[in-house]
């Protein structure tokens, strides 16, 4: 977290010395700071801070891919006659533990087109997910696990 703060301070410094606090200037400052912080590391390879950013980028990538494909399918579904999808509701045992993790997981799941969290069990371990374009239960759970849950938890932990 402190690294992020440093990054922000660097961005502000960048803007302040140029006497230009506009959004573009600050953004450039932030990216430069990020690059700096990514390389200032005692260990070899990318710093933990940079790794975090990479994880986030990866998550985003997966996410965007998912958004595009399923939205496309959704669009086709709505725009063409007849409904071809066969929805189902699956219980999904999550590995997320903390409140924040569960919440964020759910947010991500919901933002993923085609799947929608409908309920969480009382102990918070099982998510019930409505899925629009499923083939099998196994395929769905695998997809959730690998393309949504793991990348998210990697970012968070």
């Amino acid at each position, binding site marked *: 977290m402190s690294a992020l703060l440093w990054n922000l301070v660097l961005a502000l410094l960048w803007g302040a010395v140029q006497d230009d606090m506009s959004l573009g200037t600050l953004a450039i400052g932030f990216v430069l700071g990020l690059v700096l912080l990514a390389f200032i590391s005692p260990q070899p390879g990318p710093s933990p801070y940079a790794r975090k950013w990479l994880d986030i980028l990866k998550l985003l990538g997966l996410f965007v891919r998912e958004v595009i494909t399923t939205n496309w399918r959704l669009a086709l579904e*709505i725009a063409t006659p007849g409904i071809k999808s066969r929805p189902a509701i699956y219980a999904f045992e999550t590995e997320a533990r903390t409140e924040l993790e569960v919440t964020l997981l759910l947010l991500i799941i919901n933002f993923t087109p085609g799947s929608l969290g409908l309920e969480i069990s009382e102990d918070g371990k099982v998510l019930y997910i409505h899925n629009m374009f499923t083939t099998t239960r196994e395929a769905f759970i695998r997809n959730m696990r690998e393309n949504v849950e793991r990348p998210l938890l990697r970012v968070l932990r």
Partner: protein
Amino acid sequence: MREVITAVFLGVGALAMLLAGLGMVRLPDLFLRLQATAKAATLGVGGLLCAAAVNTGSLGGVAHALLTVLFLFAITPVATLLIARAAFHAGVPLWKKTGENDLAEKYRAEARPPSADSLIDGQ
């Protein structure tokens, strides 16, 4: 240039919104329609707001647009959970072609709250 980027965002947003509207009419059950709004609308509003953010270019504009998207992102799932749960309790039927339903198992054990009857609202 800025107008072109804006136009792209606008196009995506408008299309998503239109789809959401169509979906509301066309999709056969509540949960599918929930899907449509939760995604298409978020995408649509996101697109339109991003267009506005790009178009104005001011910090305030961007902040407003981002804040709005962020908030919607955070709050919509919560609403979805509450509505879905209420719908189940009320016995809102699923589309007949829906496949497996794990939630039905869960709810079978629970008693349906009596007050929920009033929710079924045949006009």
